[in-house]
């Protein structure tokens, strides 16, 4: 029973920390732009404000438009419950493996793309089209990166992968894992809409991918979608942190272990946030039709990861 509660608690932890993660990345970027910037807890204030605002929707939108924020939020929260952040070998581990995670995220993307088409604007359609293109091309990379990890662990279940790396620390520096990390990092930037693939702070509709789909949302719907995209960033960071460098994760249910795990996890998140913020500051946004080239680089890295896992087994 305590295991299940802990699993749900991990999902709630993700829910609570996700806006803060977005805020930290923004804050670091602001400092790198030589300005003070909003405090790291600003996204919480934004969300609170959005929940209290009215909602305006288009007269052409249908029930799908109104259902989508809830669906996107549920699927992302469900994934957050499945991904280990503080505790490993959850009871939820038997519920979904890495493939389930990928397809649940695809569920959210699918409906968000449909909601972009619903109000009948050209910008929404454009955002949907670009988002589905990038999601489709990123899929093989994710699948192969999962394959590379799963080959060494003998399972696609997240808990098993983590436990295997904990048991053999040498795995973490094996070529298979390092290449898979590089591939998954590029995919993270693509799926969460960060530079150089998509600019999360742009106002030019022609440069938008994720933003363009949500131009018609307001109030609590917008709050749910923004929260879900923050959760997605959190999930990908958790995957990167805990699949490839799982030390610090609690394996027993003592308060001490959980507390240490919490601090270590926050440290890993902060490090990843710093890396992402530095990359975002350094690079310029890629032209849309250069993004498939970048994603094919990540595909090749993932393929190399799998081949090296096979050969070095």
């Amino acid at each position, binding site marked *: 029973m305590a295991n299940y509660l802990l699993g749900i608690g991990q999902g709630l932890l993700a829910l609570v920390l996700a806006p803060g993660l977005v805020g930290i990345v923004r804050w670091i970027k602001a400092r790198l732009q030589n300005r003070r910037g909003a405090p790291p807890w600003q996204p919480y204030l934004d969300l609170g404000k959005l929940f209290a605002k009215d909602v305006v929707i288009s007269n052409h939108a249908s029930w799908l438009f109104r259902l989508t924020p809830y669906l996107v939020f549920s699927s992302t929260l469900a994934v957050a419950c499945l991904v280990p952040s503080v505790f490993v070998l959850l009871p939820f581990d038997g*519920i979904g493996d890495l493939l389930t995670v990928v397809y649940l995220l695809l569920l959210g993307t699918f409906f968000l793309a449909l909601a972009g088409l619903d109000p009948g604007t050209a910008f929404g359609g454009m955002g949907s089209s*670009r988002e589905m293109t990038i999601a489709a091309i990123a899929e093989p990379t994710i699948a192969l990166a999962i394959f590379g990890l799963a080959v060494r662990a003998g399972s696609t279940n997240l808990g098993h992968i983590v436990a295997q790396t904990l048991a053999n620390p040498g795995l973490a520096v094996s070529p298979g894992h390092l290449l898979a990390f590089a591939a998954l990092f590029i995919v993270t930037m693509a799926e969460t809409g960060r530079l150089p693939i998509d600019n999360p702070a742009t106002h030019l509709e022609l440069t938008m991918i994720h933003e363009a789909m949500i131009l018609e949302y307001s109030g609590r719907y917008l709050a749910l979608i923004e929260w879900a995209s923050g959760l997605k960033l959190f999930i990908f960071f958790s995957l990167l942190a805990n699949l490839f460098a799982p030390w610090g994760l609690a394996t027993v249910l003592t308060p001490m272990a959980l507390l240490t795990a919490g601090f270590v996890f926050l440290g890993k998140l902060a490090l990843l946030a710093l890396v992402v913020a530095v990359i975002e500051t350094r690079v310029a946004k890629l032209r849309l039709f250069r993004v498939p080239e970048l994603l094919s680089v990540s595909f090749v890295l993932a393929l190399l990861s799998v*081949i090296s896992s096979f050969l070095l087994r």
Partner: protein
Amino acid sequence: MISNLFPGMVLAYSLGMLAALASGRGVMGRWLVALGAILGAAAGLALGVAVIASGTPWAMNTAALFSFAGGLALRVDSLGAFFLILIGIVAIPAAVYGASYSKHYEDGHTSLRQLGLMLNLFLLCMSLVVMADSLFTFLFVWEGMSLSSYFLVITENSQPGTMRAGLWYLAMAHIGFVFLVILFLLASGGDWAASFASIRSGAAGLPDAVRNAIFLLALAGFGSKAGIVPLHVWLPMAHPVAPSHISALMSGVLIKLGIYGLLRVALDLLGGGPTWWGVVVLGFGAISAVLGVLYALMEHDLKRLLAYHSVENIGIILMGIGAGLVFQSYGLMTLAMLGFIGGLFHTLNHAIFKGLLFLGAGSVLHATGTRNMEEMGGLIKRMPWTALFFLIGAAAISALPPLNGFISEWLVFQALLSGFQLPRPEVAIVMPLAVGMLALTSGLAAACFVKAFGITFLAIPRSTEAEQAHEVALPMRLAMGLLAFLCVGLGVVPFTVTPFFTQIIAELSGISAPPTAFNFNWTLQNTAGFGQMSPTLIAIGLLLILGLIPLCLRIFRANQKLRVSSTWGCGYTGQTPRMEYTATAFAEPLRRVFAQLYRPTRELSIDFHPDSKYFVHSIEYSSEITPWFEKVIYGPLVGVFRFAANQFRRLQSGSLHLYLLYISITLILLLVVARWL
């Protein structure tokens, strides 16, 4: 009881055929025809369920019929029973749907008699194909199935392109049939009266070259029926022009009989083979999957899009089967079982959601009069039920949890991911490539169905027909709803059916089921050491969260008022359908990414004002994608045949005297030959 089901089935179908011959028009006629089909399919379904439940095959041999060829031999083992169930599951909603849909054929241009007669005959022949137990029976009913489906395809013969599509279908079906004839004659050693039992026992003794030849012929012959690239060209032509419930039956059931044939020959009669068989099947499966979805993306004819998706899903099924064959050749029986179960489960799932999607497309066609997506839009408000069911089908085919497509794709993924356990690395490398291609396929399928559902149903109507569309009649909605319910049901509780797949595969020779093969309680688990997932709990979890969010919003008083206003869209003053995204535009980024494959041709002509190049009179732009195979393979082939036929035409000069001369020469030659022999 069980022995009455077969005569009952034949009787029901015959009654349906008689009702069709009688008139087939009017509410009474259409529903009698449909009733015949429904009862026949239900009887077949019951027979299948009974055989699987009891575990014992049912056999029947009427030596009276076809005595020259060993009689009409029928046998239903678990594999046949599964396909009988599949036929029943798709045929019953299709028949119900058809009863209401064929109402608009009562305008006199189409023959309802032919439609009703051929529908029942088609279903009967398909049921007999999966029951056939001797060479002659199988080939006879296979040909019957092809012919009856040809007549069904050309039902709407007044529409342009229908007869051409029918001709292509007939030609490809018969090319496949030739392969099948050669294949069975090789397997039986030239004996027309051979039964499958004798073929099975004799197969082990055949030399390797013959076995390989049989396998390749089976792949070609059954593959052309299933729709494997490059023998798939008839699919996107025939499925769109057929009536929608027929398209559902063809896409849902007919092409699966190709899979049935392949399994029957490769696994049952031949008992498995060397590794390269599995690799070949896997390779063709992967290519079909990727190419099918890539061409589907570029279509804006809704039914052609769905037809290309059938090619893609057959590819996925073949990937599962190919993986199974590879594992079987190395003796890794648990993993082989996993591959075959993934393939078979996907067969069932695809039949259900493809049937649903075609029925939905038929409803849209019925309501708007067009198959062209670029003229639709806004149908979600005018046809809410159709939209909902189509959405469920679209989500299922994109393999989104917790629907059934996800379960079978997960199983196929797990089978492929287990490839690292293969002892030979050069073979094992095939598996990651297959995984990559499967993942690409499912991503592109999701993109394609966002386009298909979004452009067709969402936003503003792009034509007056779409604006005036209305919801379809109750029987059609009922049929779609039944299939949608099955999609959701099989997705949430797949463990109710997965044990039976183990039984089905185990009965086919060559696989021994390990004692604790799979544990399907709440979870789908692969004890070969790989993955665990509980679709039921995922569904429950999603529903719980979905319900909790509005509750939490209410508690925290985040439920502010909602106001409906005009679309923002950057402040333009009047929103017209011309401002929406089109289907072609939606697929454009992917067209550019895969431009090397598509090789789109582009034509741009600009008409300038005579005085200045800065003013434009008109701009004409057209871009076309011709499927590669038709251009490179079939075009030249058809050209060769045309050339040969033209040469033969020289003989037909029309002069009566010349014909008399031909007759007399032939007569003299025959006399000479007869004198010598």
